[in-house]
Protein backbone atom coordinates (compact mmCIF):
# COMPACT_ATOMS: atom_id res chain seq x y z
CA UNK A 1 0.00 0.00 0.00
CA UNK A 2 0.96 3.65 -0.37
CA UNK A 3 1.60 5.79 2.69
CA UNK A 4 2.09 9.54 2.83
CA UNK A 5 4.25 10.89 5.64
CA UNK A 6 4.23 14.64 6.28
CA UNK A 7 6.85 16.50 8.29
CA UNK A 8 7.42 19.68 10.26
CA UNK A 9 10.31 20.63 7.98
CA UNK A 10 11.75 19.88 4.54
CA UNK A 11 14.78 18.39 6.22
CA UNK A 12 12.60 15.88 8.09
CA UNK A 13 11.26 14.66 4.75
CA UNK A 14 14.78 14.40 3.32
CA UNK A 15 15.96 12.37 6.28
CA UNK A 16 12.96 10.00 6.08
CA UNK A 17 13.59 9.47 2.37
CA UNK A 18 17.23 8.69 3.11
CA UNK A 19 16.26 6.21 5.83
CA UNK A 20 13.82 4.50 3.45
CA UNK A 21 16.52 4.27 0.76
CA UNK A 22 18.97 2.76 3.23
CA UNK A 23 16.46 0.10 4.34
CA UNK A 24 15.32 -0.78 0.83
CA UNK A 25 11.86 0.80 1.11
CA UNK A 26 10.62 2.48 -2.07
CA UNK A 27 10.00 6.13 -1.31
CA UNK A 28 9.92 9.45 -3.10
CA UNK A 29 9.60 13.05 -2.04
CA UNK A 30 6.73 15.16 -3.34
CA UNK A 31 4.61 18.19 -2.40
CA UNK A 32 2.09 17.51 0.38
CA UNK A 33 -1.39 16.78 -1.07
CA UNK A 34 -3.64 19.76 -0.35
CA UNK A 35 -6.26 17.67 1.37
CA UNK A 36 -3.74 16.50 3.98
CA UNK A 37 -2.43 19.93 4.87
CA UNK A 38 -2.85 23.61 4.10
CA UNK A 39 0.93 23.97 4.32
CA UNK A 40 2.90 23.68 1.09
CA UNK A 41 5.73 21.55 2.40
CA UNK A 42 7.33 18.34 1.30
CA UNK A 43 6.06 14.86 2.10
CA UNK A 44 7.35 11.36 1.43
CA UNK A 45 5.32 8.81 -0.51
CA UNK A 46 6.25 5.38 0.82
CA UNK A 47 5.39 1.96 -0.59
CA UNK A 48 5.00 -0.50 2.28
CA UNK A 49 2.79 -3.39 3.34
CA UNK A 50 3.26 -2.58 7.00
CA UNK A 51 2.76 1.12 7.76
CA UNK A 52 2.85 0.43 11.50
CA UNK A 53 6.49 -0.54 11.18
CA UNK A 54 7.54 2.80 9.73
CA UNK A 55 9.64 4.77 12.21
CA UNK A 56 7.88 7.80 13.76
CA UNK A 57 10.67 10.35 13.92
CA UNK A 58 10.24 13.51 15.95
CA UNK A 59 10.16 15.41 12.67
CA UNK A 60 7.14 13.46 11.38
CA UNK A 61 3.82 15.31 11.59
CA UNK A 62 1.34 12.73 10.33
CA UNK A 63 1.09 9.42 8.51
CA UNK A 64 -1.74 8.56 6.14
CA UNK A 65 -2.67 5.61 3.96
CA UNK A 66 -3.68 6.43 0.40
CA UNK A 67 -7.08 5.08 -0.59
CA UNK A 68 -8.95 5.20 -3.88
CA UNK A 69 -10.95 8.27 -2.90
CA UNK A 70 -8.76 9.90 -0.26
CA UNK A 71 -6.44 9.31 2.66
CA UNK A 72 -6.90 7.57 5.99
CA UNK A 73 -4.82 9.38 8.59
CA UNK A 74 -3.48 6.71 10.92
CA UNK A 75 -1.12 8.74 13.07
CA UNK A 76 -0.58 12.34 14.12
CA UNK A 77 2.25 13.70 16.24
CA UNK A 78 1.40 15.32 19.51
CA UNK A 79 1.63 19.10 19.43
CA UNK A 80 0.92 19.12 15.66
Amino acid at each position, binding site marked *: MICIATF*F*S*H*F*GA*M*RCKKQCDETGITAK*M*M*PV*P*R*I*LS*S*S*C*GTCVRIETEDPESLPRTE*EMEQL*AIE*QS*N*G*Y*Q*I*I*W*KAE*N*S
Partner: protein
Amino acid sequence: MIPGVCIVTKSNEKLTIIIAGLIIGVISTVLVLLGNPKNMGFCIACFIRDTAGALKLHGAKGVMYLRPEIIGIILGSFLLSFGKKEFSPRGGSSPMTRLVLGFFAMVGCLMFLGCPFRMILRIAGGDLNAILGLVGFAAGIGCGILYLKRGYSLKRTYRLPVSEGSALPVIAVALLIILIAIPSLLNFSELIEDAKGPGLMHAAIWVSLLAGLIVGGLAQHTRLCMVGGIRDAILFKEFKLLLGFVAILISALIMNLILSAATSGTYFTLAFEGQPVAHMDGLWNALGMLLVGFACVLLGGCPLRQLVLAGEGNTDSALTVVGLLLGAAFAHNFGLASSADGPTGNGKIAVIIGIVVVIIIGEFNIARNKQATK
Protein backbone atom coordinates in the same frame (compact mmCIF):
# COMPACT_ATOMS: atom_id res chain seq x y z
CA MET B 1 -1.21 6.73 18.03
CA ILE B 2 -4.70 7.45 16.78
CA PRO B 3 -5.78 4.57 14.50
CA GLY B 4 -8.15 5.59 11.74
CA VAL B 5 -8.31 9.10 13.13
CA CYS B 6 -10.02 10.41 10.02
CA ILE B 7 -10.53 9.92 6.34
CA VAL B 8 -10.10 12.85 3.99
CA THR B 9 -11.41 12.83 0.43
CA LYS B 10 -9.30 13.73 -2.59
CA SER B 11 -10.32 16.72 -4.67
CA ASN B 12 -9.37 17.91 -8.13
CA GLU B 13 -6.51 20.17 -7.11
CA LYS B 14 -5.47 21.05 -10.66
CA LEU B 15 -8.91 22.25 -11.76
CA THR B 16 -9.42 24.19 -8.53
CA ILE B 17 -6.15 26.05 -8.82
CA ILE B 18 -6.69 26.89 -12.49
CA ILE B 19 -10.13 28.33 -11.74
CA ALA B 20 -8.73 30.26 -8.76
CA GLY B 21 -5.92 31.64 -10.93
CA LEU B 22 -8.35 32.74 -13.63
CA ILE B 23 -10.55 34.53 -11.07
CA ILE B 24 -7.55 36.23 -9.45
CA GLY B 25 -6.33 37.45 -12.85
CA VAL B 26 -9.74 38.98 -13.56
CA ILE B 27 -9.94 40.62 -10.12
CA SER B 28 -6.46 42.09 -10.57
CA THR B 29 -7.35 43.81 -13.85
CA VAL B 30 -10.75 45.00 -12.59
CA LEU B 31 -8.96 46.70 -9.67
CA VAL B 32 -6.87 48.64 -12.19
CA LEU B 33 -10.04 49.65 -14.03
CA LEU B 34 -11.46 50.87 -10.72
CA GLY B 35 -8.47 52.97 -9.75
CA ASN B 36 -5.38 50.95 -8.82
CA PRO B 37 -2.13 51.77 -10.67
CA LYS B 38 -1.54 50.14 -14.07
CA ASN B 39 -0.20 46.57 -13.93
CA MET B 40 -0.68 46.79 -10.16
CA GLY B 41 -4.11 45.41 -9.47
CA PHE B 42 -2.26 43.47 -6.84
CA CYS B 43 1.31 43.82 -5.63
CA ILE B 44 2.04 42.53 -2.17
CA ALA B 45 5.38 44.33 -1.97
CA CYS B 46 4.06 47.66 -3.29
CA PHE B 47 0.97 47.49 -1.09
CA ILE B 48 3.00 46.71 2.05
CA ARG B 49 5.31 49.61 1.09
CA ASP B 50 2.30 51.92 0.70
CA THR B 51 1.00 50.70 4.05
CA ALA B 52 4.37 51.42 5.66
CA GLY B 53 4.07 54.97 4.28
CA ALA B 54 0.53 55.35 5.63
CA LEU B 55 1.79 54.23 9.04
CA LYS B 56 4.51 56.91 8.90
CA LEU B 57 7.33 54.36 8.81
CA HIS B 58 8.86 56.12 5.81
CA GLY B 59 8.57 59.56 4.25
CA ALA B 60 8.25 58.86 0.51
CA LYS B 61 5.37 61.17 -0.40
CA GLY B 62 4.15 59.23 -3.42
CA VAL B 63 3.69 55.85 -1.76
CA MET B 64 1.45 56.37 1.24
CA TYR B 65 -1.87 54.58 1.41
CA LEU B 66 -3.11 51.88 3.78
CA ARG B 67 -4.02 49.25 1.19
CA PRO B 68 -7.20 47.35 2.12
CA GLU B 69 -6.13 44.52 -0.21
CA ILE B 70 -3.44 43.49 2.31
CA ILE B 71 -5.97 43.53 5.15
CA GLY B 72 -8.40 41.58 2.98
CA ILE B 73 -5.89 38.85 2.08
CA ILE B 74 -5.01 38.26 5.75
CA LEU B 75 -8.68 38.25 6.82
CA GLY B 76 -9.83 36.19 3.81
CA SER B 77 -7.31 33.51 4.69
CA PHE B 78 -8.18 33.76 8.39
CA LEU B 79 -11.94 33.45 7.85
CA LEU B 80 -11.71 30.56 5.39
CA SER B 81 -9.17 28.61 7.41
CA PHE B 82 -11.26 29.18 10.54
CA GLY B 83 -14.40 27.95 8.76
CA LYS B 84 -12.59 24.88 7.42
CA LYS B 85 -11.01 24.14 10.80
CA GLU B 86 -7.59 24.71 9.26
CA PHE B 87 -6.76 27.71 11.42
CA SER B 88 -3.68 26.45 13.19
CA PRO B 89 -1.72 28.76 15.49
CA ARG B 90 1.89 27.70 15.24
CA GLY B 91 5.36 29.16 15.16
CA GLY B 92 8.86 28.97 16.56
CA SER B 93 10.57 28.05 13.29
CA SER B 94 13.65 30.30 13.23
CA PRO B 95 11.60 33.51 13.57
CA MET B 96 14.47 36.02 13.38
CA THR B 97 15.93 34.30 10.32
CA ARG B 98 12.55 34.60 8.64
CA LEU B 99 12.31 38.27 9.56
CA VAL B 100 15.71 38.92 7.95
CA LEU B 101 14.76 36.92 4.83
CA GLY B 102 11.51 38.89 4.61
CA PHE B 103 13.45 42.15 4.91
CA PHE B 104 15.77 41.29 2.02
CA ALA B 105 12.97 39.83 -0.09
CA MET B 106 11.39 43.29 0.09
CA VAL B 107 14.69 44.95 -0.86
CA GLY B 108 14.73 42.73 -3.98
CA CYS B 109 11.08 43.49 -4.75
CA LEU B 110 11.68 47.23 -4.55
CA MET B 111 14.72 46.94 -6.81
CA PHE B 112 12.46 45.32 -9.44
CA LEU B 113 9.40 47.38 -8.43
CA GLY B 114 7.03 44.56 -7.69
CA CYS B 115 6.54 41.22 -6.01
CA PRO B 116 6.26 37.95 -7.98
CA PHE B 117 2.49 38.51 -8.22
CA ARG B 118 2.98 41.92 -9.84
CA MET B 119 5.71 40.45 -12.05
CA ILE B 120 3.03 38.25 -13.63
CA LEU B 121 0.65 41.20 -13.94
CA ARG B 122 3.40 43.30 -15.54
CA ILE B 123 4.03 40.57 -18.11
CA ALA B 124 0.27 40.38 -18.71
CA GLY B 125 0.34 44.14 -19.39
CA GLY B 126 3.08 43.70 -22.02
CA ASP B 127 5.96 44.94 -19.83
CA LEU B 128 8.99 43.18 -21.32
CA ASN B 129 11.21 44.35 -18.42
CA ALA B 130 9.29 41.89 -16.26
CA ILE B 131 10.46 39.01 -18.47
CA LEU B 132 14.00 39.75 -17.27
CA GLY B 133 12.60 39.81 -13.75
CA LEU B 134 11.10 36.37 -14.36
CA VAL B 135 14.47 35.05 -15.57
CA GLY B 136 16.12 36.33 -12.40
CA PHE B 137 13.26 35.03 -10.26
CA ALA B 138 13.58 31.51 -11.71
CA ALA B 139 17.36 31.66 -11.24
CA GLY B 140 16.88 32.68 -7.61
CA ILE B 141 14.48 29.80 -7.06
CA GLY B 142 17.11 27.53 -8.64
CA CYS B 143 19.68 28.81 -6.11
CA GLY B 144 17.24 28.11 -3.27
CA ILE B 145 16.60 24.60 -4.57
CA LEU B 146 20.34 23.87 -4.51
CA TYR B 147 20.23 24.63 -0.79
CA LEU B 148 17.09 22.51 -0.26
CA LYS B 149 18.86 19.60 -1.97
CA ARG B 150 21.87 20.08 0.29
CA GLY B 151 19.66 19.78 3.35
CA TYR B 152 18.71 23.38 4.09
CA SER B 153 15.79 23.62 6.46
CA LEU B 154 14.62 26.01 9.13
CA LYS B 155 13.58 24.57 12.49
CA ARG B 156 10.20 22.90 12.97
CA THR B 157 7.10 24.77 14.06
CA TYR B 158 5.21 24.19 17.32
CA ARG B 159 1.58 24.61 18.28
CA LEU B 160 0.90 27.98 19.92
CA PRO B 161 -2.03 29.54 21.79
CA VAL B 162 -4.85 30.97 19.68
CA SER B 163 -4.00 34.44 20.95
CA GLU B 164 -0.58 34.20 19.25
CA GLY B 165 -1.92 32.91 15.95
CA SER B 166 -4.70 35.48 15.75
CA ALA B 167 -2.48 38.49 16.49
CA LEU B 168 -1.94 39.53 12.88
CA PRO B 169 -5.61 39.11 11.85
CA VAL B 170 -6.57 41.23 14.89
CA ILE B 171 -4.02 43.87 13.86
CA ALA B 172 -5.51 43.76 10.34
CA VAL B 173 -8.98 44.46 11.78
CA ALA B 174 -7.57 47.31 13.89
CA LEU B 175 -5.94 48.86 10.82
CA LEU B 176 -9.20 48.59 8.91
CA ILE B 177 -11.05 50.37 11.73
CA ILE B 178 -8.42 53.13 11.74
CA LEU B 179 -8.63 53.48 7.95
CA ILE B 180 -12.40 53.85 8.06
CA ALA B 181 -13.04 55.61 11.35
CA ILE B 182 -9.92 57.68 12.14
CA PRO B 183 -7.95 58.10 8.89
CA SER B 184 -6.45 61.30 10.29
CA LEU B 185 -3.98 59.08 12.14
CA LEU B 186 -2.52 57.97 8.80
CA ASN B 187 -0.51 59.54 5.99
CA PHE B 188 -2.06 59.61 2.51
CA SER B 189 -0.23 60.59 -0.67
CA GLU B 190 -3.35 62.29 -1.97
CA LEU B 191 -3.34 64.72 0.97
CA ILE B 192 0.30 65.76 0.43
CA GLU B 193 1.03 68.65 -1.88
CA ASP B 194 3.15 67.79 -4.93
CA ALA B 195 2.97 64.06 -4.19
CA LYS B 196 3.29 61.88 -7.30
CA GLY B 197 3.25 58.13 -7.39
CA PRO B 198 1.19 54.96 -7.13
CA GLY B 199 0.02 55.88 -3.62
CA LEU B 200 -2.35 58.35 -5.26
CA MET B 201 -4.12 55.65 -7.25
CA HIS B 202 -6.49 53.22 -5.63
CA ALA B 203 -9.91 51.65 -5.93
CA ALA B 204 -12.59 52.37 -3.32
CA ILE B 205 -11.86 50.94 0.13
CA TRP B 206 -14.67 48.41 0.08
CA VAL B 207 -13.85 47.24 -3.45
CA SER B 208 -10.20 46.72 -2.48
CA LEU B 209 -11.16 44.98 0.74
CA LEU B 210 -13.57 42.64 -1.03
CA ALA B 211 -10.94 41.85 -3.68
CA GLY B 212 -8.42 41.08 -0.94
CA LEU B 213 -10.88 38.85 0.91
CA ILE B 214 -11.61 36.84 -2.23
CA VAL B 215 -7.95 36.51 -3.24
CA GLY B 216 -6.95 35.63 0.33
CA GLY B 217 -9.65 32.96 0.49
CA LEU B 218 -8.76 31.52 -2.91
CA ALA B 219 -5.04 31.52 -2.12
CA GLN B 220 -5.71 29.78 1.20
CA HIS B 221 -7.90 27.17 -0.43
CA THR B 222 -5.45 26.41 -3.25
CA ARG B 223 -2.11 27.20 -1.55
CA LEU B 224 -1.34 29.41 -4.54
CA CYS B 225 2.29 30.48 -4.40
CA MET B 226 4.38 32.14 -7.08
CA VAL B 227 7.59 30.64 -5.67
CA GLY B 228 6.09 27.23 -4.91
CA GLY B 229 4.95 26.84 -8.53
CA ILE B 230 8.43 27.05 -10.02
CA ARG B 231 10.05 25.29 -7.04
CA ASP B 232 7.76 22.25 -7.27
CA ALA B 233 8.13 22.10 -11.06
CA ILE B 234 11.94 21.98 -10.81
CA LEU B 235 12.22 19.92 -7.62
CA PHE B 236 9.43 17.36 -8.10
CA LYS B 237 8.27 17.77 -11.75
CA GLU B 238 4.93 18.68 -10.16
CA PHE B 239 3.13 21.44 -12.06
CA LYS B 240 -0.06 22.02 -10.06
CA LEU B 241 0.96 25.27 -8.37
CA LEU B 242 2.57 26.50 -11.58
CA LEU B 243 -0.80 26.15 -13.31
CA GLY B 244 -2.21 28.80 -10.95
CA PHE B 245 0.65 31.10 -11.92
CA VAL B 246 -0.07 30.52 -15.63
CA ALA B 247 -3.84 30.93 -15.17
CA ILE B 248 -3.36 34.38 -13.58
CA LEU B 249 -1.12 35.40 -16.49
CA ILE B 250 -3.59 34.22 -19.14
CA SER B 251 -6.71 35.72 -17.57
CA ALA B 252 -5.01 39.05 -16.78
CA LEU B 253 -3.63 39.19 -20.34
CA ILE B 254 -7.04 38.51 -21.89
CA MET B 255 -8.70 41.03 -19.58
CA ASN B 256 -6.08 43.68 -20.44
CA LEU B 257 -6.73 43.14 -24.16
CA ILE B 258 -10.50 43.31 -23.63
CA LEU B 259 -10.24 46.48 -21.52
CA SER B 260 -7.94 48.11 -24.08
CA ALA B 261 -10.48 47.40 -26.81
CA ALA B 262 -13.58 48.27 -24.80
CA THR B 263 -12.44 51.41 -22.97
CA SER B 264 -10.49 54.55 -23.76
CA GLY B 265 -7.59 53.40 -21.56
CA THR B 266 -4.47 51.49 -22.53
CA TYR B 267 -4.02 48.33 -20.50
CA PHE B 268 -1.59 46.43 -22.75
CA THR B 269 1.57 47.82 -24.34
CA LEU B 270 4.16 45.34 -25.54
CA ALA B 271 7.40 47.24 -24.95
CA PHE B 272 10.33 47.87 -22.65
CA GLU B 273 9.84 51.63 -22.66
CA GLY B 274 7.09 53.64 -21.04
CA GLN B 275 5.81 50.96 -18.71
CA PRO B 276 3.97 52.09 -15.58
CA VAL B 277 5.91 51.98 -12.29
CA ALA B 278 8.86 50.19 -13.90
CA HIS B 279 12.43 50.87 -15.00
CA MET B 280 14.46 49.48 -17.88
CA ASP B 281 17.66 48.32 -16.20
CA GLY B 282 17.52 44.65 -17.16
CA LEU B 283 20.45 43.49 -15.04
CA TRP B 284 19.04 44.95 -11.85
CA ASN B 285 15.49 43.86 -12.64
CA ALA B 286 16.88 40.32 -12.88
CA LEU B 287 19.14 40.57 -9.81
CA GLY B 288 16.35 42.07 -7.71
CA MET B 289 14.05 39.19 -8.51
CA LEU B 290 16.90 36.69 -8.08
CA LEU B 291 17.16 37.89 -4.50
CA VAL B 292 13.38 37.57 -4.10
CA GLY B 293 13.24 34.03 -5.51
CA PHE B 294 16.25 32.89 -3.48
CA ALA B 295 15.00 34.37 -0.19
CA CYS B 296 11.45 33.12 -0.72
CA VAL B 297 12.51 29.51 -1.37
CA LEU B 298 14.38 29.59 1.95
CA LEU B 299 11.24 31.10 3.52
CA GLY B 300 8.99 28.46 1.95
CA GLY B 301 6.75 30.83 0.00
CA CYS B 302 6.28 34.13 -1.82
CA PRO B 303 5.04 37.34 -0.11
CA LEU B 304 1.40 36.48 -0.99
CA ARG B 305 1.83 33.06 0.60
CA GLN B 306 3.33 34.64 3.72
CA LEU B 307 0.21 36.81 4.16
CA VAL B 308 -2.03 33.78 3.67
CA LEU B 309 -0.09 31.62 6.13
CA ALA B 310 -0.12 34.48 8.63
CA GLY B 311 -3.91 34.55 8.28
CA GLU B 312 -3.97 30.81 9.04
CA GLY B 313 -2.26 31.47 12.35
CA ASN B 314 1.38 30.97 11.38
CA THR B 315 3.34 33.44 13.51
CA ASP B 316 6.57 32.78 11.60
CA SER B 317 4.89 34.07 8.47
CA ALA B 318 3.49 36.99 10.46
CA LEU B 319 7.06 37.88 11.43
CA THR B 320 8.08 37.54 7.78
CA VAL B 321 5.37 40.09 6.97
CA VAL B 322 6.88 42.36 9.63
CA GLY B 323 10.25 41.84 7.90
CA LEU B 324 8.67 42.85 4.59
CA LEU B 325 7.23 45.97 6.25
CA LEU B 326 10.58 46.89 7.80
CA GLY B 327 12.31 46.25 4.47
CA ALA B 328 9.90 48.59 2.72
CA ALA B 329 10.39 51.34 5.30
CA PHE B 330 14.17 50.92 5.23
CA ALA B 331 14.26 50.87 1.43
CA HIS B 332 12.49 54.22 1.17
CA ASN B 333 14.24 55.87 4.12
CA PHE B 334 17.71 54.94 2.84
CA GLY B 335 17.21 55.34 -0.88
CA LEU B 336 17.29 51.65 -1.83
CA ALA B 337 14.04 51.54 -3.78
CA SER B 338 14.14 51.99 -7.55
CA SER B 339 11.98 54.47 -9.43
CA ALA B 340 10.96 54.85 -13.05
CA ASP B 341 14.39 56.49 -13.54
CA GLY B 342 16.13 53.25 -12.57
CA PRO B 343 17.83 51.64 -9.60
CA THR B 344 19.84 53.63 -7.07
CA GLY B 345 23.44 53.04 -6.07
CA ASN B 346 22.33 52.27 -2.53
CA GLY B 347 19.75 49.83 -3.88
CA LYS B 348 22.39 47.94 -5.90
CA ILE B 349 24.63 47.64 -2.83
CA ALA B 350 21.66 46.46 -0.74
CA VAL B 351 20.72 43.76 -3.27
CA ILE B 352 24.30 42.44 -3.32
CA ILE B 353 24.37 42.46 0.50
CA GLY B 354 20.98 40.71 0.45
CA ILE B 355 22.22 37.91 -1.80
CA VAL B 356 25.28 37.44 0.42
CA VAL B 357 23.11 37.37 3.56
CA VAL B 358 20.75 34.80 2.02
CA ILE B 359 23.76 32.62 1.07
CA ILE B 360 25.05 32.87 4.64
CA ILE B 361 21.62 31.93 6.03
CA GLY B 362 21.51 28.98 3.64
CA GLU B 363 24.98 27.75 4.61
CA PHE B 364 24.38 28.27 8.32
CA ASN B 365 21.19 26.21 8.33
CA ILE B 366 22.75 23.33 6.41
CA ALA B 367 25.65 23.17 8.86
CA ARG B 368 23.32 23.19 11.83
CA ASN B 369 21.28 20.31 10.45
CA LYS B 370 24.39 18.24 9.88
CA GLN B 371 25.28 18.77 13.53
CA ALA B 372 21.76 17.86 14.60
CA THR B 373 21.89 14.52 12.81
CA LYS B 374 25.11 13.43 14.46
